[in-house]
């Protein structure tokens, strides 16, 4: 069921971005999203939660819940990266650990922002997604 949740949320994001056919409009929207991302609790913006990309920094905090889901929060020092972090959090946060671990994240491809997920882009986002899935996998294993 939670896998459906992730799929539905991705569909929402894809629909939202379908409004923009111009490259710059899409980024304008991403910047707005970046500004709106609920900031990570400043007390948690520590090196423990830091994923250091070569270009920008990403912070990620994960909170496993009693019901087997994981809540994520994240931040970045670059606003575009922060917008992308926000999208990832929006798609994955609150889903079942197992569904997070197994999520097929195709929405960045679909909205034409997949290049930010490239490891060569070094903005910390690819490492963040890997980290989110690892949290999910670790928690799912503990539950099993």
């Amino acid at each position, binding site marked *: 069921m939670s896998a459906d949740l992730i799929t539905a949320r991705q569909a929402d994001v894809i629909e939202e971005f379908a409004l923009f056919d111009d490259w*710059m409009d899409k980024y304008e929207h991403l910047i707005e999203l970046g500004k709106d991302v609920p900031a990570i609790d400043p007390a948690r913006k520590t090196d423990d939660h830091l994923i250091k990309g070569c*270009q920008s920094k990403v912070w990620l905090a994960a909170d496993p819940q009693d019901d087997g889901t994981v809540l994520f929060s994240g931040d970045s020092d670059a606003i575009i990266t922060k917008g992308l972090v926000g999208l990832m959090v929006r798609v994955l946060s609150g889903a079942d650990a197992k569904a997070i671990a197994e999520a097929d994240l195709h929405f960045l491809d679909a909205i034409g922002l997949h290049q930010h997920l490239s490891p060569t882009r*070094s903005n910390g986002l690819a490492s963040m997604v890997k980290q989110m899935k690892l949290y999910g996998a670790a928690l799912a294993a503990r539950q099993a």
Partner: protein
Amino acid sequence: MASHTLPERIRRDFPILDRTVHGKPLVYLDNAASAQKPLAVIEGQREYLANYHANIHRGAHHLAQLATEAYEGTRRKIADHIGAADTAEVLFTAGSTDAINLVAQSWGRANLQAGDAVLVTRMEHHANIVPWQMVCEEKGAKVIPVNVLEDGTLDLDDFTRALEQHQPKLVGIVHASNTLGTINPVAELCATARAAGAVTLIDGSQALPHLDIDVATIGCDFYVATGHKAYGPTGIGFLWGRKALLDAMPPWRGGGEMIRSVSFDGTTYNDLPHKFEAGTPHISGGIALGIALDWINGVGTDAIAAHECALVDHAHDALGTLPTVRIIGTAPEKVGVLSLVVDGLHPYDLGTLLDGQGIAVRTGHHCTEPLMAHLGLDSGTLRMSFAAYTTREEIDRAVIALERAMRMLS
């Protein structure tokens, strides 16, 4: 007679400059990372692969001879281009990084001992830091950095002080900084270092495409550069070294080509330059590098240097009108490299939004993390870097695009 600017004369040599990116005409300002290739280089590489490909130096047949002559022709062209006394002093490498690793692993391992020092500057590319750290760690030696001043020039007092204090065995200096554009006074620095008994290595990666280079005038012991920043292919570059030093150095990589005779009782090594060139090299790259040097010399290093100097001045003026933009590196002598930061905005965001407008720049620390840390630029800079084909109009477009990106982000 109508006068034409340098770009007007040469842009048609570069087919890639006609393409679009995200639906906008490409403005390529990432030349310090890698320059685009003129048709002569593209065609020359194709011509070799299509018409006279063979392995070099060993075949007793016509194609091997043609390929060898073309490849060795580039060695002569490099020697001529940098004023080397002897063609055998020019070794082909995969690039500058490979060349510095060769010196570190061969000269360094044979000459550095516990307690020794290698002096480099804080504006070095990682390629002129990490190979020294690796060999120094192994030998119990240390790598000492020379300070860089606020304007991006080298702290000459600190240089002299460090020479006296640490008595380094080797001094490594970048000819022109890839991040700041600063042209270092390498002849003066080499003379001082030499007087202090140090061997000198100059990293000419950013100098080769922009400046006239003469190793005799510079007075260094080693000079390295890479082809792809100088309109040539990737994967090919060179190390020039003084013959006496190269002769005394042990081979680094073993294999075919670098030997005179091989037996299980003992192997003897080939003469220079082949002693350091094990295995089949990047033949097409070597041939095309020679064509790139021909292209540079056809245009003229003086014309290129003057054009880029004017571009840097123009860019400084245009960016100077934007109050929140701070130019990083304002040395009086610069190659066509311009780093900047914008108050309160992240270089990655700016670079991404420039890309969206067809402007290719580089953002981040540019493989000079110690320099960025020294200047307190945690997120690095946005770097525009120019080439012979860059126009004033392109810089103007980049500045307008930057203003738009700044508006979007604030």
